[in-house]
């Protein structure tokens, strides 16, 4: 209905292969970005509702952005390459703790070599990226089994990662710089000399990260590598007979996915939590990301955002709405009903629309494009 595609013809492959080939979509995207980058800060500056308090920024937008980033990472592995992962929490943790170590300075005594690796504290940005890198390395390590084992068996391998690293960060004090409590504090967030403190600054920081990585992810999945991943997902044998190297395809998927998840992890720790314990990245986190991807839509960058939004908003709604209606609901009931609803929704989506919200979205879009025709 809103689409006017007549006359939007492509005279070059570049234009034909663009991410948003339709003008109306480009406009929509522009609007979204404008809101995110300009309107939100402006409203916050003016303390206009809903920015009267920084609740919206602190408790919703920032975690939303970071988890969306995480979901994008998981989606690359699960949605595009078809390798199930139940250990994403661990990879967030790896990102977080590596970033923490790099941020606070690494000192690794190697007595038996009579030497020691020690790196001075790095600035935040490199630490975060290095955090991602470490996650990527470990990701590749735990991806290796995927060359021999498939499906459920692989899921178990990723679980192994989850439990192993839960344990590592609890028990290996070196990672927490031997803090007695085991909880650690993020270094102060300095980027190129300017300090990121207030919620809005944190929000913008996350926004930048998410934008950059979303673009990178999109570029990868629409290119040669993305096609290799999807080929492995859809028909791995045929893919290999086309000359796609499973080793390369799968491990790159693990690496990229873990990298993004790792960065998300370090953001979660540094920007959202500020100070945290290993519990912040336990298996529940893994499932949270998993659900975001399933509900949002396997194999869709957009879906990652939708899923993150849903999983994040649901409990808040279940908590707020009854209050608004004057029906007092215990915290426990809320958390339990969240469990039930998410679980039920998963089953429902798997049955009626395995590709989640993203698919529903694109169906709606198709309808608008075909309007007034039904098909």
């Amino acid at each position, binding site marked *: 209905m809103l689409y006017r595609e007549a006359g939007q013809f492509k005279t070059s492959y570049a234009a034909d292969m663009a991410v948003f080939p339709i003008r109306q979509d480009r406009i929509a995207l522009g609007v979204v970005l404008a809101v995110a980058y300009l309107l939100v800060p402006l409203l916050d500056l003016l303390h206009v509702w809903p920015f009267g308090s920084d609740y919206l920024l602190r408790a919703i937008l920032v975690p939303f952005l970071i988890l969306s980033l995480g979901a994008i990472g998981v989606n690359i592995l699960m949605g595009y390459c078809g390798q199930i992962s139940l250990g994403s929490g661990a990879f967030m943790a790896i990102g977080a703790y590596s970033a923490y170590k790099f941020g606070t300075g690494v000192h690794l005594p190697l007595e038996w070599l009579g030497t020691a690796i020690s790196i001075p504290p790095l600035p935040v940005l490199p630490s975060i990226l290095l955090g991602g890198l470490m996650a990527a390395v470990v990701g590749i390590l735990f991806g290796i089994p995927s060359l021999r084992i498939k499906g459920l068996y692989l899921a178990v391998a990723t679980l192994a990662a989850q439990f192993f690293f839960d344990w590592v960060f609890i028990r290996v004090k070196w990672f927490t710089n031997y803090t007695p409590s085991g909880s650690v504090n993020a270094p102060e967030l300095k980027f190129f000399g300017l300090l990121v403190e207030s919620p809005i600054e944190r929000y913008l920081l996350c926004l930048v990260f998410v934008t950059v990585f979303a673009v990178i992810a999109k570029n990868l999945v629409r290119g*040669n590598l993305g096609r290799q991943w999807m080929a492995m997902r859809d028909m791995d044998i045929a893919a290999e007979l*086309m000359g796609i190297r499973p080793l390369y395809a799968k491990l790159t998927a693990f690496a990229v996915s873990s990298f993004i998840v790792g960065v998300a992890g370090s953001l979660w720790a540094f920007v959202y939590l500020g100070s945290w314990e290993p519990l912040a990245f336990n298996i529940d986190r893994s499932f949270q990301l998993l659900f975001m991807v399933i509900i949002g839509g396997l194999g869709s960058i957009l879906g990652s955002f939708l899923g993150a939004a849903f999983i994040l908003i649901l409990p808040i709604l279940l908590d707020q709405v009854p209050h608004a209606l004057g029906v007092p609901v215990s915290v426990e009931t809320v958390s339990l009903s969240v469990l039930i609803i998410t679980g039920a929704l998963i089953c429902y989506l798997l049955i009626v629309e395995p590709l989640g919200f993203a698919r529903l979205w694109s169906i709606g879009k198709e309808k608008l494009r075909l309007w007034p025709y039904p098909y």
Partner: protein
Amino acid sequence: MKADVEPRPGAASLKEAGEVLLSVEGVSLSFGGVRALRDVSFDIRKGEIRAIIGPNGAGKTSMLNVINGFYHPQQGVITFKGKRRHDMRPYLAASQGIARTFQNVALFKGMSTLDNIMTGRTLKMRRGILAQAIYWGVSQREEIRHREAVEHIIDFLEIKHIRKTPVGKLPYGLQKRVELGRALATEPDLLLLDEPMAGMNLEEKQDMSRFILTVNDTFSTTIALIEHDMGVVMDLSDRVVVLDYGQKIADGRPDEVQKDQKVIDAYLGIPH
């Protein structure tokens, strides 16, 4: 457009001259107790269309799987382009120039016709992961270059109208065509076609025959195909090898094979 599937006079004899591209010597393959292939030997010459026929369960598909390294025979030697080939992962076979279509279509269901065929270019794409992450610049140029190549295949196979349709939505005949396109995209020296015309109507078969012949003519691609439709086999192929119960029972020109008593028996299911 009418498909010309008349056997081209002299073409076959002319190809006898072509040197051996791939030879299979004494190949035996078995799964647990089941013996899929027993001591099979034959060769495929450059530029010819070689048909592999035989009753169901004769081991035809297993033979193709052996040729492109998906199965590893317990005994036997495979020589490709004059080099003796050791057991290898299938993707290596592909990188050496062996492409393949499948008995029951094995397309990437989640992707469009265009993307499916683009995957065939993987081996030819060099850009590293970083370049691809940035996309604009070298990577985009590479994508465009290969898109052009693929568009020529799409044009050749007359599937312009379904360029951007998800292959899952396509009718069977078109899926087969897309699969052929995907194989062609790898610019193979040896093209293995596993029942390229199974389940097609007459018109589709004629089109497919036309494509196969044109591929063979214009790109002088060597083709080995499994096919049940005898008419098609006789029209298309220069030489035919016949398998039965995993054994080679005949090998030669279509007309010769057609007369061979063993072959007739095999097809009539006469025990031996």
